[in-house]
Structure formats: C-alpha cells, structure tokens
C-alpha cells in the first residue's frame, strides 16, 4: 500500500478531520458480534492482512502529520502530558529503539535509521527531522527520549514497570486519551488504574489480564481492540480538558448524530521491552464519524444492535447514556430488522 499523508487537518475548533475512502475501508471495526461484553480478547501481535492496521507493529496512516501537530499543540498547552519517572529512563530508551527500528523497517520511504555502535542517525522525512545522537545519552537529543520519539508516533504510550508481580504506570506520553489521565494514574498499580471500570472486576477479567501481561516475553507482543464513542473528532478527551468537551454530549440529536458522534477504536499493543524488562502499552486511536461508518451497511446494522443492547453501567462508564436515545433513533434505519 502506498502511504500518503493528508493535508493538515484539525482535531479541535473547526474539526476538519475526515477519513478517506481507503481509511474507512481499513478502519478496525471492533465488534465481532451483535452484542458487546468486556473480555480480555488478546491475540499475538503478528503481522496479518497487508494494508490493514494489523500489518505493522506500529501503524502509520494518512493522518500522521496532522496527529503529530495535534500532539505538539497539546504539549504546548500542557507539557505534563509526558512523564518519565527516574527509574524508567532505560524503558524510555528501549521505547525509542523499538519505535525507530520498527518505523525504519516498515516505512523506509519516510523513516531511516543508521547505527554505528551508540552513534545513531535518525531521519523522519515526513516531519522533516534529521537527528544525530548518542544512544543512551539524553543530552544529545532535543528533549527526553520518550518524548522525543513519541512526538513522532501516532497514539498514546504508557510504560509499565514490572515489580512485586504487578505493573505500575511509571512513564508515558498521553495526549489523546479516552477520558483518563496519566498524571492522575502515575505510579498506580494495574488494579488501581482499572478501578473505575464497571462490571469487569466481578468477572475476574483484571486478574486474568494481569497474569497474562506479566508473562509477555521479549519478541512475543500481543494486542487487543477497545472502543468508546467521542463527540466530534476530538483526540484530546482527557479529564484535564473536560470543561472543553464534556458538554458536547448534550448536543447530539437524531438529526446530527451522523456528523457529531464518532466511533473511537483503540488498537492496544503490549510489548516487553528487552533492556528494561518494562512493558510498553501503546494505544493507537482511530476515529470514524457515523456518517463515514454507515457507508458499510454491515457495520451500521451491527453498531445499532450493540448500542441498543449495551448494559447501562458500560454505557454510563463510556459517557454514552446522555445521548443514547437520539443515537439509536439515528442508527435504527440501518437495521432492516429493527
């Protein structure tokens, strides 16, 4: 697949973000059935379906340049969206190495990496970056290494330290979260940062998931999909900016839902970092308006049924309850049996 970047689009103010027909075709629609319930749904992150979001470990798409501009804007307004505790410095370098190697291998037309021992030369032709630096020496980069590389990669990143048979959120770059905050979760254990999730605790989902994650080995990454809904194509739906977007949920009507409501899918990837033994948890977010989504009739019908039958606690947790009725009214005509 040839990858070309769209002219600069926005994820705020005038919301000019939109998907091309190709981007719609490769959108990772997350519902394998008409009903949704929490599950661990992990699979080995091996390459599959050329052209899909599952082809490469880290997917770069047509929104790359725009998303990086959005990240820069969020960091300008709130530099603390990136956080690296002192004991996570090595995990940050691990992440930089993994991302540079992956991008240079998977997208050689845009990313190049030359290494001579610790002397590295990185070129990002998409963003016009040419950087020589000494691997392991933060003074040779313009900023801290995790921040440096994640300013050049779509999606959010959490780096989890593994100790006491648990995982701790001790570093990350989080500028496009689905209503969670790295600054709030910093230092928390796996169970602690998942405490707000309803229903799943009773089902033992988190005990099983933690045990699985602790045993992820070098070279055997895994992935899963998660989803929510977002009003407008807004990437930065964080608690820190809730005052800017929370009230949008009251604006949805049966007439405008197609343009306002977006399905937000997270491709979550978990990778054991070799040098630090930390676990990288990356969250690559895909947005699609319902107007775009219903160009696929099978998706439209299934989304209606999932939204209709979604348990109330999950709808509440995902912030859907307030506009579920107008959303269903808008979606119903796409289900021939409704």
């Amino acid at each position, binding site marked *: 697949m040839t990858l070309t970047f769209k002219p600069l689009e926005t994820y705020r103010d005038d919301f000019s973000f939109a998907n091309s027909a190709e981007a719609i075709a490769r959108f990772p629609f997350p519902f394998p059935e008409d009903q949704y319930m929490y599950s661990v749904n992990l699979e080995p992150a091996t390459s599959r379906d050329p052209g899909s979001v599952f082809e490469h470990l880290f997917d770069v798409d047509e929104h790359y340049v725009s998303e990086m501009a959005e990240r820069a804007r969020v960091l300008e307004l709130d530099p603390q969206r990136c956080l690296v505790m002192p004991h996570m410095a090595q995990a940050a370098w*691990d992440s930089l*190495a993994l991302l540079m190697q992956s991008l240079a291998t998977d997208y050689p037309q845009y990313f190049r990496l030359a290494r001579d021992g610790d002397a590295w030369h990185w070129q990002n032709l998409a963003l016009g970056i040419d950087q020589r630096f000494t691997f392991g020496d933060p003074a040779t980069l313009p900023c801290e290494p995790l921040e440096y590389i994640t300013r050049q990669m779509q999606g959010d990143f959490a780096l989890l330290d*593994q*100790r006491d048979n648990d995982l701790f959120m001790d570093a990350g770059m989080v500028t496009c979260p689905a209503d969670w905050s790295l600054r709030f979760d910093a230092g928390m254990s796996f169970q602690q940062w998942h405490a707000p999730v309803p229903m799943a605790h009773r089902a033992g989902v988190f005990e099983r998931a933690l045990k699985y994650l602790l045993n992820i080995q*070098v*070279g055997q990454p895994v992935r899963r999909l998660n989803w929510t809904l977002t009003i407008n194509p807004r990437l930065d739906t964080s608690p820190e900016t809730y005052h800017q977007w929370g009230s949008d949920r009251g604006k949805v009507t049966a007439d405008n839902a197609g343009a306002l409501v977006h399905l937000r899918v997270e491709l979550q990837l978990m990778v054991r970092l*070799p040098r630090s*033994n930390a676990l990288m948890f990356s969250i690559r977010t895909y947005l699609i308006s319902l107007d775009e989504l219903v160009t696929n009739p099978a998706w439209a019908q299934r989304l209606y049924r999932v939204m209709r039958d979604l348990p109330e606690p999950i709808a509440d947790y995902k912030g859907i309850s307030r506009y579920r009725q107008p959303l269903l009214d808008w979606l119903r005509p796409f289900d021939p049996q409704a």
Partner: protein
Amino acid sequence: MIDVRVAAIHELTPVIREYRLQAIDGALPGFSAGSHVQVHLPDGRRNAYSLLGDPADNSEYRIAVRHQDNSRGGSRYLHQVLCSGDRLRISAPANLFPLYSKARQHLLVAAGIGITPFMAHSRELLRRGEDFELHYAYRSGSSDAYLGELRQSLGPRLHEYPAGIRRLDARALLKDRPLGAHVYSCGPQSLLLAIAEQAAAQGWSPRRVHSEAFAAAEPGLPFSVELQRSGRQLQVGAEQSLLEALEAAGVEIPNLCRGGVCGQCQTPYLKGDVEHRDHFLAANERATSLMPCVSRGCGSPILLDI
C-alpha cells in the same frame, strides 16, 4: 527460537566453562539483567542458563555451565561434546530474576556457579551508579569463576567468602540495612533458605527478598501418564521429565524456568499419584495441578486434563 553459533568456549576452572553464542543471522534480541535462555540439546532436552554478559552488548550472549557429576546429561553434553563453531538452538531471553527498579540498595549474594546472573546485574548497577554490594561464596580453584574480573570491576563492593576461610553470615549481611534495601540470592537451596530466614527474622518484607534457585529436573523412576482429551498414553523415562516427554510427543506446554519455580507450565490433572517437586504450587493447588517440568508420578498412573 534463535539459532546461534558457539563462537568461543573458555575453561574458567576445571569444572566451569563459559560459552559465547552469536546469532547465525540477524541480531540477538536485547535482554535485561537477570534474564536466562533455554538451550535446546540434541536429545530434545532444554536447560536454562543465566545470561552473564553485559546487557548493553547484544553482539553475543554469554552463559557459564558447571559440570555436574549427577547431571542428566545436559552439562556433560555441553562440556564434552559441544565444540567451538557448533550450532545451537536457544529460546528468546526471559527474566525471572530482575533488579527491583525502586530499590535504594541492592545486596547480591552468590554461591558458586550462582554468580552468573549477578555478572549481568553488577554491570547494570555499575552503569546506573546505584548503591550495591556483591557477596560471593566460592571454593578456590573450582567454583571461583570470574573472581579476577569481579575484583577488578567492583573493588570494595565485592565481599569474598572462600570456602574454609570465611563463612557467609546471613545475619550480619542483612543487619542494619536501610528500609529500601533489597536482597537477591542465587546458589544452592541452603543459601536461599538462610537468607530468607534471616530476612524474615529481621523483619524484612518478603517483597524485598528475591532469589533464583538452581532449577532443573532431577531424575527419578519411570512412570506413565494418560492425556484425557486425546486418550494418548506416554511413558516418562527415568532420566526424562514429564515436560520433556510431552514435548517429545509433540505436546507444547508454555514454560520458562524448567525448574518448578516460575509457574508457567502448571497443568491440571484428574487422578494419579504425584510426587510434587516444585516451589510454586500451594498445598491446596496440588490436588488438581502439577508442574510437569520437575514433578513425577509415584504410584497409580497420572491422568492429565489436557
């Protein structure tokens, strides 16, 4: 799985040899200090060995093997058959003995060939500039591999306990340490127990006490198992572990340590007499689960729920 070539073999003492392994094609994966790899032997066995090289150097992996007189054949093969230039197959590194990232002080305690994980740990801690000590009990002329190298790199951080000259005193070693100190031990079971007992006696939280045993299957009497779901019958030989018998029959069970410690290969069983030899399962779990890497049948045949 990684294919490697034995780049060099060094005799460090009359009973310990070091093997340097290089990738046949591509690069070796990076590893964290405390990691081990499984070496696949020609008879189908797999033995776990700590990576003792510098984690910053992934041009080669280094392992050290002590010749065991009562070995089931792993160390004998490596010592007597394997030559420089030979090919080997190894697993990707996994870490069951990592450094605790938030420790204020690290106390590393090794006996004999238990020094190997601490070779990587001490290099890593030196690079990070952290507060640590290495306490090393050895027998001069046989289990004192790396002594010269350690004296040079660690200076006063190295505390030596040559057999017959100075005894390692776990009580004194742990006394008056700061609250953020963590202790790591690797060596025979007696050393690990002495450290754990002293740590408990001095009020250390178990979270601050880490250890890695010499974990390997021990031989026993032959026994038989049946696989519930396929109805297959397997015979496990005296020198073979149940895990090895399953692998030889094409049944892959996830595993890491192959020594009854990590818990990865936990397998449910429905009936039979089991001699549990692991350090992982709680007493109540043993009624329905066993660790095929070390545990064996000892009476009526075992029916595995797989």
